[in-house]
């Protein structure tokens, strides 16, 4: 009886460290999930754990990954950009279209310029107009799609050009340049987010916008910049895709955006803002990439793929939830 009374008020250091360990474990449960998936694949599919396969994966998920990085920034800062899918397609077309006429540098430049302008417009509408970001970017998404189709008349642009396709088809040893770019961006974006004033400002703004403003942060400027980063990322993803395919075409298919969001969510970045990390998005990306690769190698039906992806999304959320509850408990001990 006496000991039980004492326990809550005087926790032993052993108990405290056990709680810490559990919290840490739950916090890194996505990593465990990834390890599990990788192990399962290694056993089931002999060709999974080959250098060539893993190297390919980086290039295959480069476009999705770049979008996911920017989405992570924006979501942490409390924003959202539904127009990334449309901007991605539009920028791919711009790159391919300009590239056929004026060469690679102008092509990439034009796509990036378009992406940044779209991002700027989104940022201005959302921040200065004070409009809900989901809805505002749904609106711009319609507009971008319409404009893209109208000016290309829905025709694809083909571009066969070594320099244009260098990024998409060249390789550093076995790793595609696009994959190298993705890995580099993950590292840089991770460092910027966790170690710079700009990065920490995103957490602060997403966590409490008004308090951040009153602490002297330039909230509007920071968020508009983040929307521009989002547009820029859509452009870079578009360039990667155009360069990998040697073609660009408008499409109404925004599944690439859903892939990117699924990646962010599986990683554990919260849609309510203020919480998340690039390493999480990296893990989420790896999970989705391995799953897709494994599904193909094991030749699972696309229905089963859907079901498993859905269950993993829910599992990631459940873990996150468990973590939050447990952390509260650990905290007071």
């Amino acid at each position, binding site marked *: 009886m006496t000991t039980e009374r004492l326990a809550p*008020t005087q926790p032993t250091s052993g108990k405290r460290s056990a709680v810490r360990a559990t919290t840490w474990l739950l916090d890194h449960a996505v990593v465990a999930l990834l390890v599990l998936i990788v192990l399962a694949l290694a056993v089931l599919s002999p060709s999974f754990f080959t250098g060539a396969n893993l190297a390919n994966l980086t290039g295959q998920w480069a476009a999705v990954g770049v979008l996911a990085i920017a989405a992570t920034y924006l979501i942490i800062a409390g924003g959202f950009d539904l127009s990334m899918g449309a901007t991605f397609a539009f920028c791919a077309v711009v790159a391919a279209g300009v590239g056929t006429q004026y060469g690679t540098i102008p092509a990439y430049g034009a796509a990036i310029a378009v992406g940044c302008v779209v991002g700027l417009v989104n940022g201005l509408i959302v921040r200065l107009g004070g409009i809900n970001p989901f809805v505002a970017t749904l609106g711009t998404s319609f507009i971008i799609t319409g404009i893209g189709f109208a000016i290309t008349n829905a025709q694809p642009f083909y571009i066969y050009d070594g320099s244009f396709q260098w990024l998409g088809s060249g390789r550093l040893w076995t790793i595609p340049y696009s994959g190298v770019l993705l890995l580099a961006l993950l590292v840089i974006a991770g460092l910027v987010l966790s170690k*710079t*004033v700009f990065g*920490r400002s995103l*957490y*602060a703004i997403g966590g409490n916008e008004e*308090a951040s*403003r009153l*602490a002297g942060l330039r909230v509007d400027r920071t968020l508009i910049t983040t929307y521009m980063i989002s547009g820029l990322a859509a452009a870079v993803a578009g360039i990667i895709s155009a360069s990998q395919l040697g073609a660009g075409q408008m499409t109404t298919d925004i599944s690439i955006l859903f892939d990117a969001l699924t990646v962010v969510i599986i990683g554990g970045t919260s849609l309510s803002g203020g919480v998340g990390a690039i390493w999480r998005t990296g893990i989420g990306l790896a999970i989705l990439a391995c799953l897709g690769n494994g599904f193909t190698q094991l030749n699972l039906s696309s229905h089963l793929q859907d079901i498993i992806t859905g269950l993993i999304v829910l599992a990631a959320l459940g873990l996150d939830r468990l973590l939050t509850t447990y952390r509260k408990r650990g*905290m007071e001990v």
Partner: protein
Amino acid sequence: MSGATESGATALEVSGCSKTFPGVRALTDVSIAVGAGEVRGLVGQNGAGKSTLIKVISGAEHADSGTVSVNGQLLAPGVAAHRDAGIAVIYQDPGVVPALSACENVFLGDLPTRGPFVDRGHMRARFEELCRELQVSIDPSARAASLSLGDRQLIEIMRAIRSASTVLILDEPTSALPEEERVRLFEVITRLSGAGVAVVFISHDLDDVLDICDTVTVLRDGGLVCTKAASSMTRDDLVTAMTGQTIESAPRSVTDRSIGAEVLQITDLTTRSGADQVDLRVRAGEIVGLAGLLGSGRSEILRAIAGADRVQSGRISLLGEQVAWPRSVREAKSLGIHLVAEDRRRFGLVGGESTTMNVALGGFDRRRWFGHVSRSAEMRSQHEVLQHVGYPMGRESQPVRNLSGGNQQKVLLARLLALRPRVVLLDEPTAGIDVQATAQILDLVRGLASEGAAVIVVISDLQELIHACDRINVVRSGRIVGQFASDAVTESDILHLAFAQPA
């Protein structure tokens, strides 16, 4: 109140209540009994478990063990059951639903119906009745979003007294109430208790508690310390019971500070949000208080000076030199003007971030976007200032939302101190904070002043304000209507001026 404790039969009885939140024991075996017509005070330090006890009584939290009964009847769980038994609560954090009308807000959770539909006629009639009872006039069809803060609080009070047939509980209702409404609320309490309603009143304002309560219950660390007649206790007795130790009130200390040259001069400040041709002067080492009713525009004056709100007109001089009016918080900060806004959770802290980050945030505007932020370096550089404000060291990396109100305020002060401010603007730095922490924070403010800062502070508790300041300006409808030296002023002088009708 009436002095007489002729309370009738036991109206509310809580026996053996314990409540554990994950990892924290909020209530341990608490039993209280409140008689019909009795006004019971409930006091304790922050986190003592007062609000938790109230939530158990109202049915909003389910106790791990123990029972709540009203007039001898055990209550079924759930807010609705407790409400139907005649228990009503005015909560610490006011809650109205912005899109619903004033009238619907009063009947929230208990809308009268006629057939399948809400009975608006009946609702409106009852609403007008309540308005008459409280001598206020609120448009019943106005959306709550368009009501002033004071009116919203009134809506909550109306909601509570509408259904309080047996027990009325008030959880720090006065912390957001202006004097006028406060007085009216006390009248209502008197009337209801006269009509046999048991009242439980929670406040950090111990004088109020001793003033209006018949008996007082003290909680400490989730346990019951004592229940005594109010008439048999003094303020110091209560403090001792709450803290388990004796605290001397800090002595007034104008003398050990030298007041220097004029640092800040504001002329003709007018804002759309409420400030009206305000003139203010503050000298180095001086603490100037702003007194006024809720909604008088005190916060708006501070926010305008800090660059947080847009101004329509106004001139500002620093150390005798006229400068352009700061158009953002950032600009104000670069002039050395720093604000610690009211409501620290909403306007001060990023709850999910650590203490380290919350303190560091204050310096972000002086740094380049891609400047390196290192946690360990920040922690080292903040060590001294956190220790200075009396922060419980070792918790720097936990999210600040887990800290007590007092410690949260200390984090904000640490952020301020790290910036070596020239002008300091403090809005309600002691709101909702217990006696001990309040004393510490006011000491820190004095410390800031003695290092040469010019301080303007808003505190609603007039006694505290007089105690803390050298000079007090009274604000009414956004204007400064009078000024007093604090060693020659009484609360009633201030109130008189604050209430005076414009000629």
